[in-house]
């Protein structure tokens, strides 16, 4: 998995691409989240539009990141979730955990000032 970072005002957008599936991805993602939180960046938007698929290990990676951000008093939201991945969120009820928007613009306005 590759992660591209963009900052728009106080929101950090992380664009995930490739496959989210294993322990190397977990370390990569968690280190980046820690770095953002320690730098005071607590509003995080994950753009999953270029993520081709995810397995249950990958779901665990997202949950771990979500919990880290929430415990630090921050917010993590999702955008551009492909149908195949959205189906997995729905059946596992993770759709009730992750706030999800169709586009970056729609998500950005919900973070507030």
């Amino acid at each position, binding site marked *: 998995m590759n992660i591209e970072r963009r900052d728009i005002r106080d929101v950090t957008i992380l664009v995930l691409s490739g496959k989210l599936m294993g322990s190397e991805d977990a370390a990569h993602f968690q280190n980046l989240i820690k770095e953002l939180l320690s730098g005071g960046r607590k509003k995080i938007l994950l753009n999953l539009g270029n993520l081709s698929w995810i397995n249950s290990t990958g779901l665990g990676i997202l*949950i771990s990141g979500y919990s880290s951000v929430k415990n630090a008093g921050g917010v993590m939201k999702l955008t551009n979730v492909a149908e195949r991945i959205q189906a*997995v969120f729905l059946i596992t009820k993770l759709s009730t955990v992750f706030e999800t928007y169709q586009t970056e613009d729609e998500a950005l306005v919900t973070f507030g000032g």
Partner: protein
Amino acid sequence: MAKTVHWETVELAFPSSLEYLPLVNAVAEEVADRLGVERETRDAIDSSVIEACTNAIEHGNKKDRTKEVRIRFRTNGRTIEIEVSDQGEGFDPAAVKDPRRPENLMRERGRGIFILRAFMDEVQFRVEPSRGTTVRLVKRLAKAASGGGA
């Protein structure tokens, strides 16, 4: 007169490492594409294959690259049967907790088998303590509408 049902088989064996999952996914997508199934069915097959293989690699063979995972697709055009075998110690599928329950929702693990059961029509485990575990997945196929679909 009884009609002859023709079954086709595709098999793959690979070392127990997650780095082989993209290869497995590519094979699953190709098999599903050849069947001409609708998008939802194709996604269900692809996601289930990835979960079954993740399970075999991580929990069955404990990522021991000297142990193999085998996957076999069999289809007659109306049904697809997928068997994924590992060489691990086996486990009790009945002991798997429902990941949707509030107390389990934020757990980082424990969703793989639930995903298989949600996406496939049949899921059976055959645990042979000295030889490994085989999970058999069955999906009855819905064909995509002609002219392309979603």
